[in-house]
């Protein structure tokens, strides 16, 4: 009986909402960020190898795929930082009401894109 009992469905049936989406996205972007930081370290290591390897990376980052990656990284960092700030506020004991948490969650999502655009414009020296 004990072993025969099935496990009731969980993540397969449970509905997502703002807070759970932000939470899982924070974890995913966190893992991506660790990988990206490693890659950036490699990038700096490449600089030691001289101008030709620097040119290679510059070529990559100026390609459409490279730009997509760079903007993706910026978003991943922006999202993670904003979400962690939200978590810090929660650690102080604020923002646990359903309405407030939904609002801060949506703010995190929207501002992660705004921050990405801002960083892009700043990096391109357009503002």
């Amino acid at each position: 009986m004990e072993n025969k009992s099935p496990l009731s469905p969980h993540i397969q049936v449970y509905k997502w909402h703002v807070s759970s989406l932000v939470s899982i996205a924070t974890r995913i972007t966190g893992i991506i960020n660790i990988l990206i930081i490693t890659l950036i370290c490699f990038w700096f290591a490449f600089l030691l190898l001289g101008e030709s390897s620097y040119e290679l990376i510059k070529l990559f980052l100026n390609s459409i795929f490279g730009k997509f990656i760079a903007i993706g990284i910026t978003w991943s960092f922006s999202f993670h930082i904003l979400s962690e700030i939200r978590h810090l506020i929660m650690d102080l004991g604020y923002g646990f009401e359903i309405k407030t948490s939904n609002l801060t969650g949506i703010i995190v999502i929207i501002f992660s894109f705004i921050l990405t655009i801002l960083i892009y414009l700043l990096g391109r020296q357009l503002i």
Partner: protein
Amino acid sequence: MVQINLPENSKVQKGQYFKDKTGSKNIRKVNVYRWDPSSGKNPRIDTYEVDMENCPSKVLDVLNKIKNEIDPTLSYRKSCAHGVCGSCAMNMDGKNGLACTTSHADISGDINIYPLPHLKVKKDLIGDLDGLYKQYESIEPWLKNNSKNNKDEIYQSQKDREKLDGAYECIMCACCSTSCPSYWWNGDKYLGPAVLLQAYRWIIDSRDEDRKERLQKVADELKLYRCHTILNCTNACPKGLNPAKAIAEIKKMLATT
């Protein structure tokens, strides 16, 4: 451990279809999780066509109607039908709640009813909550007062009493704990929102003298800190309580004392 897929014996199959026999024009499809321990088969989803003309407003009424009029083999827990006992906690439309306080009018489309998530199923919509009750026992949910002259009444100011608001109302229906992904993956060690809310209720009780020991007992990487503020618990609570905030308060107390 995180295991996204259900084990082989828990994969849900298509079940029977019960066509409406009343000839009513107001029909709703209700999909119900079924598992019969004597059959040796996998769980299945049975679909019932329910006549909504003659059905009261709550999901529990729909289940009662199915059991009384269509299929008497359906099993589920229920008792008070007024949101006080916590027996009829289940997963409706992808969200945990009490069947007796959830209106079927609030659910759009077919009504999907599952047992509380990530529990060993005993039969149909009945999940095994033994583990949760054992954890509840582990926090020693009773007043501990070691005063010598304990024949006297223990006074509590109104202000101290107010601290218990939002914690004492919990009916232990397990909607919150079984909605929590952290509890799904680490339910054997992580105490879960329901039990932690109760732990908090005894920690902040001004009459209790075991505050320090209680705090120390709960201060554990797995018992407490598996809470990652996903807030499924607060969203699920049918009594409108806030277990996530209680857990945050415990964390705060541990950080500041």
